[in-house]
């Protein structure tokens, strides 16, 4: 009973929350806030329960047939629950943040409704047990994020949302074609049934390779692989919590997670390696990492720089997948979470600057460290983590990537990592310099673009606390990486499942 109960309950927490939010009137502020937070906390509880159960060897799965030979499968496996844990945890923070961020702005019912839907889809993605179910939630994610990106209703926001749709819907179709082709070839493959494709003979290799790249093209749009990343920087017009969600938890991650599922749970790392797919992935990821870092260097808007940084960072995950061997896998999986923690921190902070001081451009940040020390501290933690400095989680990812590259016989990847680190430093350190060392309005130089005093502290505590919490998480997850249930430990557990019989 409980095997089926938990996945469904986890999924429906946010679905039900979304439905109720849509039914509540716009003015029901308190009820909505309570509902949002209660659902988020409940979801964390459910996921935590499943984590506990999983480590004790229980299974959580539910399925029913949708078509002949095709089922809707929800299953909590170690990999899925890892992603679910990330999204439910970050959902809580983002919800808190969004409540503060959208104070006194219109259309909050719509926002939070789709927000919940978005999280429901992310959870569905993480718990999906086969490609078909994955696709269902993947597309649902596209749909539920559209209103969030278009939320402001300005021409710019609408244009960005349209561009977003063009990319993602087309990608969804490509993905669907690939999945149907795979289904035609091999039937319904549950995640983890790697033996199905492994048993195909050499005459099917070409087809398998072609389908793989079609699927990668489909996932690559959301994962922001160059040259399919064009929507991402434009989507920055969305409100900050949406950007945080898009970049750290939901959309970009969904693409990366899809590739993880594809390689590890459908094709299997061995087969992918044998077909020569992993090297291709690593090359694509490397190009993306370097290109996006260079582009980030040229941005003058804070959020756009962060967006290109996301493009670059998410490809670390792909790079890790491309490195055959347990270390590369650990790197990929842990970075999936690490990047989420760091990037969400950065976006929270960027939102705080925009809300409290009206800062959007990097050159307006001069001296903001004095005015908003805690926010700036959190931002610094995120930025240094992105550069890959210990003890932040970014360092761990880089560590496993580098060592995994050597293990996979691709030491050139280390050069990519080093150059990427240097570029990261080149575009984040100047920001930090401006924050902490440049004299700004609080030193009597110039004026904040649009200063507001939102709270008792440097800004509203709804905005401040989530940023601090995620920053703290990204420090602790790095500093104490050896503890059980940290991202790294859990990733190692999953990688062992993949590579050990």
């Amino acid at each position: 009973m409980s095997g089926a109960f938990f996945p469904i309950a986890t999924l429906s927490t946010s679905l039900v929350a979304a439905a109720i939010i849509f039914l509540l009137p716009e003015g029901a502020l308190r009820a909505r806030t309570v509902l949002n937070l209660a659902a988020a906390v409940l979801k964390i509880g459910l996921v935590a329960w499943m984590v506990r159960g999983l480590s004790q060897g229980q299974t959580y799965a539910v399925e029913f047939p949708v078509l002949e030979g095709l089922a809707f499968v929800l299953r909590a496996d170690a990999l899925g629950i890892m992603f679910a844990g990330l999204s439910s945890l970050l959902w809580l923070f983002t919800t808190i943040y969004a409540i503060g961020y959208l104070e006194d702005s219109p259309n909050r019912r719509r926002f939070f409704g789709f927000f919940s839907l978005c999280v429901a889809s992310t959870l569905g993605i993480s718990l999906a047990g086969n490609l078909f179910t994955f696709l269902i939630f993947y597309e649902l994610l596209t749909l539920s994020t559209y209103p969030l990106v278009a939320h402001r209703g300005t021409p710019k926001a609408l244009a960005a949302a349209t561009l977003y749709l063009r990319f993602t819907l087309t990608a969804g179709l490509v993905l669907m074609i690939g999945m149907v082709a795979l289904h035609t070839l091999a039937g319904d493959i549950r995640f983890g049934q790697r033996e199905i494709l492994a048993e195909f003979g050499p005459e099917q290799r070409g087809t398998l390779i072609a389908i793989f790249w079609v699927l990668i093209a489909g996932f690559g749009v959301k994962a922001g692989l160059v040259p399919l990343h064009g929507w991402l920087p434009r989507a920055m017009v969305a409100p900050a919590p949406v950007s945080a969600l898009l970049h750290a938890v939901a959309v970009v991650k969904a693409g990366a997670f899809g590739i993880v599922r594809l390689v590890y749970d459908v094709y299997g790392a061995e087969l992918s390696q044998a077909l020569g797919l992993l090297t291709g992935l690593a090359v694509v990821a490397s190009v993306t990492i370097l290109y996006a870092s260079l582009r980030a260097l040229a941005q003058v808007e804070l959020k756009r720089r962060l967006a290109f940084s996301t493009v670059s960072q998410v490809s670390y995950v792909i790079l890790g997948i491309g490195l055959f061997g347990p270390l590369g896998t650990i790197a990929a999986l842990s970075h999936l979470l690490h990047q989420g923690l760091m990037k969400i921190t950065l976006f929270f902070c960027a939102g705080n600057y925009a809300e409290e001081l009206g800062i959007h451009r990097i050159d307006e940040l001069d001296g903001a460290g004095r005015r908003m020390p805690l926010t700036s501290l959190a931002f610094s933690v995120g930025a240094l983590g992105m550069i890959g400095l210990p003890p932040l989680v970014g360092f761990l990812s880089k560590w496993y990537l580098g060592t995994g590259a050597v293990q996979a016989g691709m030491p050139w990847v280390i050069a990519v990592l080093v150059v990427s680190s240097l570029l990261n430093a080149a575009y984040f350190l100047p920001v930090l310099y401006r924050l902490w060392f440049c004299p700004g309005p609080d030193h009597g130089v110039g004026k904040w673009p649009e200063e507001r005093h939102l709270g008792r502290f440097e800004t509203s505590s709804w905005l401040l606390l989530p940023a601090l919490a995620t920053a703290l998480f990204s420090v602790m997850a790095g500093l104490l990486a050896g503890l059980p249930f940290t991202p790294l430990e859990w990733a190692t557990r999953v990688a062992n499942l993949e590579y050990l019989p």
Partner: protein
Amino acid sequence: MNSAASLLLWLALVAPLPLGLLAWLKPPRRMRAVVLAASALPLATLWLLPRVGEGALQGSLALGGLSLHWRLDALAALLLLLTQLVLLASAAYAVGHRRAALSGDVSHARFWPLLGGLAFALGLIWVAADLLLLYAGLELMGLCAVGMMLLPGKAEAIRAGLRYLIYALVGSLAWLLGVALLLGAWGTLELAGLAAVAEPDATTRIGMALLAGGLLLKAAIFPLHGWLVPVHASAWTPVSAVHGALVVKASFFILITLWRLLLPEAITAAWVLGMLGASAVLWGGLKAWRADSLKQVVAWSTVGQLGYLMLLFPLLAGTAASVAAMAWQATWLQLAGHALAKAAMFMAAGNLMLSTGASRLVDLAGTSRRLPLSLMTFGIAAVTLMGLPPSAGFTAKWLLLQASLESGQWPWVAVLVLGTLLTAAYVFRVLRCSFVEQAPRHEFHPLPRGMDLIPLLLALAAVGLGLVAEWPLAMLRQGGVS
């Protein structure tokens, strides 16, 4: 047992006629009344459904020297259920619609008998196993539909209705000509008998071609769709909903039934039909994308969506049994999903237009804040049309894609992709307009709650159907592709 089931079936089929007449005399004022009165019909069909699973229910009616054959198999029963549900929803909606939009318009009462006639005609078409019965049903349906379309009485409505009328009539004659050839050649009107004796010789082929011409005209398949969009422009919302959801599909149903009986191996012609469908998808999508009034968008979308159904022809002709089975299921799923979604969409669009008092897309600005429910309904319905998961449209598209890939008929993959993209383009054009914030404030008229609820339920049903598709499809498979 069997006779009881037959009796119930015919009661359910005929019942709309007296109900419609009753409502004509005493127009209902509450949605509840309509729902209470008519919900017995789908319940009856639901009761019948498991009973047709094992074997079709069939029989004949003697009428003078004539014997008319009917047959209720799983497909017919499912279609009947679908028809009853959509009509029930439209009827309930119509009550609210009259209250909100047409208070004081006496001509509204005429809607009811026409609706009853339409319901009877559609039921007749689903269960007919006989060309004469089919003909009668087709004609009754056409006339009722025209009548309903004409109810608003504006000049544009009249012109469009006239066009619809004369083309429908001529289409029937083309169909009758084909029937004449078939009857002359094989001497029977009964479908089963025809299937037994008929061979695909020249007469059959030409007869089918003529018949298909007429039916394609009635089904508004590209390039014979010209009458469809103007008709919807001024029709009442519940009428549009019924028409877009059901009426056009009856002709398709007849065509595919006859085609499979008489010309199962005609690959080239099937491809021609498929190509027409593909053109319909593209043309309908294109026009819907470029349309600038809400109702036109929805109407054009019907043209496009009907094209998907036509892909069944090439996928059935000369393909492997598994492909044919997939395509078969996909088409009916698509039809059902589209029926529910299109009805919902017409209603949602009608609500939006009623509330804002405007019909152009640019006038939708601000609706996402003021009329979120209607817009949401529109969006959910659009999910099915776009074929995004987890809707019926998605599941159908999945099957269609799978069938196309498995049979190597690549062009349809491209059609599906382009069609989906175009659908997304026009749907999101509407949604985009609704998201615009800086626009002059409209007066927004409040609507009865039921008018929001009914399309929402329909749209959710269309979405949910995608997830529970296995239930009807298993029944279809049990009935066999035959």
